[in-house]
C-alpha cells in the first residue's frame, strides 16, 4: 500500500475537479447554444430534401416522351451484376423490313437483391439504365420489389445499337 503525500492528495482532488468542470463547461455550451443542433427532421423535410445526383437508390431505365428506351438487350448488366439482380427476357420483334429482330420483352430488376454497387450502370454500353435518387423502398409485400424496368409497350430508340 502506498501512502500519498497530503500535498499530492489535495492537488489530485483539485485537478480532478478541474477536469470535470472542463467537461461540464463544454456540455453547458451546447445546452445553451441551440444553433449548433444538427438534427434533420426527416419526414418533415421530405419536400426540400435533395439527394446528390450520384446517390445510388435503385436502378431505373429512362424513357423519352415517345416511350422509347435505349436498351438493346445485350445482357451486359445481367453479366455484370454480382447478385443476379437483373434478368433480361427477350421477345422476337418484326422490323419494318419484315426481318425478325431480338428485342427485350422485360428487364426484370429485383430490388430486394440489389446492393447498389453501380456495376450494371458502368457496364451498360448504351447508357440505357441509371441510378435513381429514391430511397424510401419499404413495401408491405416482397413481390412489389420485383420490378420491370421498361415501360409496357415501350420500344428501343432509333439509332441505338
Amino acid at each position, binding site marked *: 500500500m502506498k501512502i500519498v503525500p497530503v500535498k499530492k492528495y489535495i492537488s489530485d*482532488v483539485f485537478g480532478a475537479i478541474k477536469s470535470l468542470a472542463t467537461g461540464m463547461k463544454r456540455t453547458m455550451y451546447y445546452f445553451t447554444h441551440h444553433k449548433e443542433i444538427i*438534427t434533420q427532421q426527416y419526414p418533415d423535410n421530405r419536400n426540400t430534401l435533395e439527394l446528390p445526383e450520384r446517390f445510388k437508390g435503385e436502378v431505373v431505365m429512362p424513357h423519352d416522351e415517345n416511350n422509347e428506351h435505349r436498351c438493346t438487350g445485350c445482357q451486359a448488366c445481367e453479366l455484370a451484376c454480382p447478385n443476379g439482380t437483373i434478368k433480361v427476357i427477350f421477345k422476337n420483334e418484326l422490323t419494318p423490313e419484315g426481318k425478325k429482330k431480338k428485342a427485350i420483352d422485360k428487364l426484370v430488376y429485383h430490388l430486394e437483391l440489389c446492393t447498389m454497387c453501380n456495376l450494371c450502370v458502368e457496364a451498360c454500353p448504351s447508357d440505357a439504365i441509371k441510378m435513381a435518387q429514391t430511397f424510401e423502398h419499404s413495401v408491405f409485400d416482397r413481390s412489389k420489389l420485383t420490378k420491370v424496368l421498361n415501360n409496357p409497350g415501350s420500344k428501343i430508340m432509333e439509332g441505338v445499337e
Partner: protein
Amino acid sequence: MPSFYEIADQLHSWLNANFNPTWVLIIEMVLAGVAVIGLFAVLGLVLVIMERKVSAWMQIRLGPNRVGPKGMLQSLADTVKLIVKEGMTPSGADKFLFNLAPYIAMIVAMLLLAPIAFAGNFQLWDINVGVLYVSAISSLSVISVLMAGWASNNKCSLLGAMRSGAQIVSYELTAGLSVLAIVVLAGDLKISAIVASQSDGWWIFKGHIPAIIAFVTFIIAVTAETNRAPFDLAEAESELTAGFHTEYSGMKFALFFLAEYVNVFIVCALGATLFLGGPMPLHIGNWEGFNHAMDYVPSSLWFFGKTFFLIFLIMWFRWTFPRLRIDQLLNLEWKYLLPISMINLLIVTAMAILKWHF
C-alpha cells in the same frame, strides 16, 4: 395568491367545522395520500421530459418534439405505452420477490416525501428527527434493488444488485456526514427548524467554505445513492445490459423508473432544504429593497426552483461524465469523500461552537 399553508389551513378548519375529528383525520390522510400519488405522477412526467430535453440539448439534437406542444406530452405517451405493455415474469424468477421489488422501491420513495417542506409551513409530517428519518428510510431503497437483482435469476441482474449494495452502503456514510454538518450548524434535526434557521441567509453562504465542501460531497454522495450516472453501476447498460432491472418490463419497469426519478427529486429537495434554505427566499445582507422584492416570490416557487436547479445539476453530471469502475467507485468514497467529509465535520463543529458562522 394564497400560499399552500393558507389553503391547507382553510381546508382544515372547514373540515373541522363540518365533520367530527376522526373523520377529519381520515379525510386528511386520504387527501394527503392522493396528493402524494398525484405529485408522483406529475414528478415522473416532468422529470422524464426534463431529462430527455436536457440530454438532447447537450447532445446537439432536438429531443422529443412530436407529442404535444414542443414534445412536452412525450412522457405521457410513454407512460401509456408502458402501462399497456405486458409485464413479464421470467419463468426461473422468484415470483413473489420479483413482483414485490418495484413496489418496495415505490413505497420507499413515497415515505421519503413525508417530512419535506414544500413551502413555508407546509409539510405532511414535521417529525422532530426529520433529517434522520430521511437518511434512515433512503437506505431502504437498496433492499428493493437487491430484491430485484436476486429474484430475477439473471447473472447480470445479480451483479448489478451486488454493486448497488456495496455502493449505497458506502455512500450513505458521506451523505450522512454531509447532512450532519448542517445539523450541527442549525442545531436541530427537525426540518422546519433547519429551514427557520436559514431565514437570515442560507447555510451554504453562512457556513463559509466548510458548508460548500459539505454541499459538494453531499451532491456526489446522493448522485451515487440514487444510482445516477456517473455512478450508475447497478444499471451500467454497456456492461450489465440493464443491471438489476434487466428482466423487468411494462409497468413494473415503469415503477423502478419512476422511483429513481422521485428519489432524485427527494434528495435534491433535501439538499435544497439543508443547504439552500428550502422555501426561504434569497436575502443578501442589508439590501432592504432587494430582500423585500424577494419576499414577494412565493415560498413554494423558491423551493421548487432550488430543487430543480439541483436536479439539473445531477442531470448535467449524467450527460457529461463516463461511468466509474466498481473499485474506483469505492476508492472515491473511502479514500476521498469519507476523509474529506469527516475532517469537514470536525471543522464545522468547531465553527459552530466558536460561533464563527454568520
